[in-house]
């Protein structure tokens, strides 16, 4: 990217005309970055997002430093009768700790019954959440971009078919459909087993059902871009459809796609959590936030932290991505006044 640090060549400034004081002297991305940097809330979101990704990637290291293996049982710390964390592990009749056994060793307390370390499970849960959300988002973006750009560029019956397809997808009761579909696919389908299949299935289902959101945006942008004369200019130079689609249009779609996929990630995180909550998520004992929430229903009287912590994890992650995405969108919005 060029970064002209000085005003452009003044070839025409000798005459009475000047382009005026609004002339864009910095690139859109630089302006966006400047705006973004001033947006403290969005920056906070970005920082949290980075931390979350780091947390997911570094999960093994983090848990080694601050926790325990995520599937390791610590039942000696638990009350056998109620499953809650004991006030005093040495005394089995000391009653249940209302804080769920939070301490220096177990930062976020213990999972009821099994006594597994909540911190480690939350950290590992981020892996699944983010993996599925990112994977699904990439799938959405790929399908949405290809179909959106094709629909927008070629128009006519191609557009009609794809647009109707998007309508159909939006007309489906998505969540129902997704859980139903996740339920009817047997293990071992498509040559995949166990969690590999579950993750692939989650990514596929979420990605497959959410692409119209990207598709619509790309189609709309393509329709606008198509009217821009540079497309005609490229054609008049003898460029083919491939060149126009990928060399001329696609670079212009990168920004909106980036912005909207950032905003799609939180949606997909919630979607994944919802599926896990409804019991069609990942296989145990692999931790997932939605799955933990779903299990927590049985322990909310004795171990309220088990409800709150995974819920908060989802909330913070989604919020951070939303803040980040909102900030990006505002920063890139040409209509922003400053």
């Amino acid at each position, binding site marked *: 990217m060029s970064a002209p640090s000085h005003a452009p060549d003044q070839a025409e400034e000798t005459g009475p005309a000047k382009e005026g004081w609004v002339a864009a002297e910095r690139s859109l991305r630089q302006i966006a970055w400047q705006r973004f940097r001033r947006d403290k809330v969005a920056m906070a979101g970005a920082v949290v997002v980075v931390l979350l990704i780091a947390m997911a990637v570094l999960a093994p290291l983090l848990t080694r430093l601050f926790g325990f293996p995520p599937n390791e049982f610590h039942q000696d710390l638990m009350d056998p009768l*109620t499953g809650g964390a004991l006030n005093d592990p040495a005394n089995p009749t000391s009653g249940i700790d209302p804080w769920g056994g939070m301490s220096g060793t177990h930062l976020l307390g213990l999972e009821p019954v099994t006594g597994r370390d909540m911190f480690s499970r939350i950290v590992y849960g981020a892996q699944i959440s983010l993996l599925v959300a990112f994977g699904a988002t990439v799938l959405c973006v790929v399908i949405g971009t290809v179909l959106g750009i094709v629909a927008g560029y070629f128009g006519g019956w191609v557009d009609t078919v794809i647009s109707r397809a998007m309508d159909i997808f939006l007309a489906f009761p998505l969540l129902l459909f997704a859980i139903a579909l996740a339920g009817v696919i047997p293990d071992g389908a498509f040559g995949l087993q166990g969690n590999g299949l579950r993750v692939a299935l989650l990514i596929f289902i979420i990605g497959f059902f959410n692409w119209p959101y990207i598709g619509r945006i790309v189609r709309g942008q393509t329709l606008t871009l198509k009217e821009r004369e540079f497309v005609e200019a490229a054609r008049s130079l003898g460029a083919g459809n491939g060149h126009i689609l990928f060399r001329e249009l696609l670079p212009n779609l990168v920004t909106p796609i980036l912005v909207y996929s950032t905003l799609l990630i939180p949606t997909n995180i919630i979607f994944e959590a919802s599926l896990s909550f409804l019991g069609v998520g990942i296989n145990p004992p692999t931790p997932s936030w939605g799955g933990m929430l779903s299990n927590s229903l049985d322990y909310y009287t004795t171990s309220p932290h088990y409800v709150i912590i995974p819920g908060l994890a989802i909330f913070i992650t989604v919020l951070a991505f939303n803040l980040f995405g909102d900030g990006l969108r505002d920063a890139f919005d040409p209509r922003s006044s400053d």
Partner: protein
Amino acid sequence: MSKRALGLAALGVGSALFLSACGGGGGTGGGDAAGTYDQATTEVVNASDEKGGTLRYAISANIESTDPGNTYYGYVWNFSRYYARTLLTYSPEPGKTTEPVPDMATEMPKVSDDGKSYTLTLRDGLTYEDGSPIVAEDIKYGIARSNYGDDALPNGPRYFKELLADSDDYEGVNADPSDPLAGFGGIETPDDKTIVFHLKEPFADFPYVLVQPQTAPVPAEADKGQQYQENVVSSGPYKFEGGWTPGNGLTLVRNEEWNADSDPIRTALPDQITVQEGVDQNEIDQRLINGELDVDLGGTGLGPAKKGEVLSGEDEKARLDNPENGSLRYVAVNTVVEPLDDEACRQAIMYAADHDSMQRAWGGAAGGEIPNDVIPPQIAGHDPDLDLYPSKDDKGDLDKAEEKLKECGEEDGFSTNLGVRADRPTEVAAAEAVQQSLGRVGIDVEIKQFPSDTFTNTQAGSPDFVHENELGLNIYGWIPDWPTGYGFLSYIAHGDNIKKAGNSNISELDDKEINEMLDEAVRTEDADEQARLYSDIDRRIMETGAILPIVFEKSVLYRPDNLTNVHFSQGYSMYDYMTLGTTGS
């Protein structure tokens, strides 16, 4: 005795259950309304003969079916007696609740000398809700519709079809519309009051079969097949109001045609009985505690959330009963999937398992006792002294386990899969505990989840599926259809009972010794000899390592203050619903 096509016990969240008494003094209780902890397990709490009021039931799922001929759930067997009387039923007397006693029959059946025919006489004054008399042929019809033909009712057991003679060519009540019972020779109804059952072979447990709700009378003209459940013609003290479809609840009102004199079992105290379906378990528990509900119809007790809360409060604890419900929860260790086809490998699992951890997953001591054998304590043949795989604090013996692994040539451990019902948190928790404890000796277990409604039919219950997916382990549970050693063991341990689908011998245990001993036991008349045989089978099963017991399950039942005449029926493994009354509402 071995060719029973059907009879898998459906272990729902609420389960079917039939077990023998574990003793305990009878007598009608006194004490205050709250009673004391576990009191109703052994005696009647809050005795009262006060009539009136509405008895309010709720259930977290939908009622399986209201049709007495089409159900395998114990709670329906118990509950359906409100409107569908049977020939025999379990005694309402505390301490004798596993004994069959006459209901519609005047007395216990007369058995012929060859042991092949059972004759019963109906009481006087038996009528349907429209006042028409109940005749013996209606009972025969009820049995026919639920047992015979391609379109027999799918959900119930089919013991009659197995046991009755002269009926193999009978194709069911729909085969010949002009005469639905033509060709059904296994039951004779010489007059309206007499009914004679002819068996292929002697079967000493037959009275238990007559307890089943399939012996309820069904007038042929009222039969609408599976949709009969929408409005069952009442023979008991209550009848349907407004019909029933699954999920929409049920209301029973008094059947004025019911003759109390003809009925020694039912006290029929409430004026009305309501059932709400699909209520969240936590919500049911909360309402029980608040006094807004009288009975959890499913009979499995409090959910984990409330259980924890109530068990830790002394005051509330007095309203709890914590009886063993006669079911064995276990891990079926498959004997075909490699390397578990080797007995030593299976024994390695038996040694490595952490029983303390599995019990915790099941809710600790309130959830069940740690078993050392297969036959539950209530059933003759249980051996309290057996302990083939001893370990300190029930945490497992890892050294022994590794020895066994070496013996079967898998000293580095091996991998296998563990099938579990996804929508049963307790079983999933137990699966995680199994996974965790086997991991200690290098046995790598991957958990596979399946929907519970298809688990027995298509996944764990299909040997082909089990082999194909290498489901070496499956979490399962077993409640006998009636509380004898034969009733308990034949379906989970007899090699002849391995089926292509809906198989309950999930271990695919086909041990010649066990098979022969079982066949012998069921022919044996002497109770002590029988018990000794069952004991040997019990021991042998443990030796094979095909069944890894998790717990002898216990329920935590809540007994609201306004519920009267509460006592636990071992026969149904829940409160005896026929005696309940209410002081509230």
